[in-house]
């Protein structure tokens, strides 16, 4: 099984006092969105939105999140991406 590090995520949400959280999962983990959303809502009281679209990598982030009042976004399956301009 893949470790979704739920405890860490819950802690970050509480620290941030986020009221609305967007969760973004790669295709292989999308079926676990229900489990993650239920846990976050139950443990933090934050409202959860599930990103419907693609999640190909840390380079593939949704835009316009401020307009729907997202306070915190959590993406699973990837880590920090160092965008290089020279190497393209």
């Amino acid at each position, binding site marked *: 099984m893949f*470790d979704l590090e739920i405890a*860490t*995520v819950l802690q970050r949400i509480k620290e941030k006092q986020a009221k609305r959280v967007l969760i973004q999962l790669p295709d292989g983990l999308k079926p676990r969105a229900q489990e993650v959303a239920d846990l976050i809502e139950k443990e933090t009281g934050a409202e959860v939105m599930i990103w419907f679209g693609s999640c190909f990598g840390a380079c593939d982030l949704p*835009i316009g999140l401020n307009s729907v009042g997202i306070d915190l976004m*959590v993406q699973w399956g*990837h*880590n920090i991406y160092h*965008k290089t301009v020279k190497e393209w």
Partner: protein
Amino acid sequence: MVEMVFVDATWEQEIVLGKDLLRYFEKEKVKSVGLFASVQFLKLEKVREQLQQSEIRVHETKAKRTHLKTQILGCDAYHDSFEEDIIATSDAVLYIGDGLFHPKALLLAQTGREIKPVVIWDPVSEKMKIITQADIEKQLNKKKANLKKFLAADVVGVMVTVKPGQQYMKNALFLKQVLEKKGKKVYLFLGDTFDYRLFENYPFVQVWVNTACPRIGTDDITEMQRPLINIREAYDAEKTLEEMGK
């Protein structure tokens, strides 16, 4: 900007190479491997130990866009995507992970050279798989055909995404200047998703240039009716064709 948290989603079980894989390396007289993994599968202590016990040297490097050593991304599909060219200096290439998207990058990164197979160990299914040049042949042939069409094209569409991680606006503007000096008419397009079915709306564009994810110009092209190349090749398509052996 909304604050973001990344969760690696690490594979919890210990990763242990199968006996069939180690036997394959022995049969092929492999003395060194270039080791790569996707971020979920970086707990590789046992794998390194197994390889060392088999008297196989383990070469590891950091890809320029990744956060961690040994980790690979799908966009690491060029030979200079890595700090050290361990693919060239190793007898074999070993990838730990599930799926084919990442290991195919390791084949694509060898374009223009004699392509070494990539040996995959999938910790989820606990199975070994080998992918070879044959698995990217269709892509390479389409890429060559598209490069030739690009060289002959008078009208080019350069596609820029608004997704921040894949947005290369400055590069697109620079390319426009380069291509205009070569006598091509360039139109810039802006979007958030690269749906190639929408190319049909712009029949005046003879060839498209992608500035977003590099894999659009290597993998997705096989499904496209209209020719597309990556920005990297657009600066000097002739040279790329020569390197690919025309």
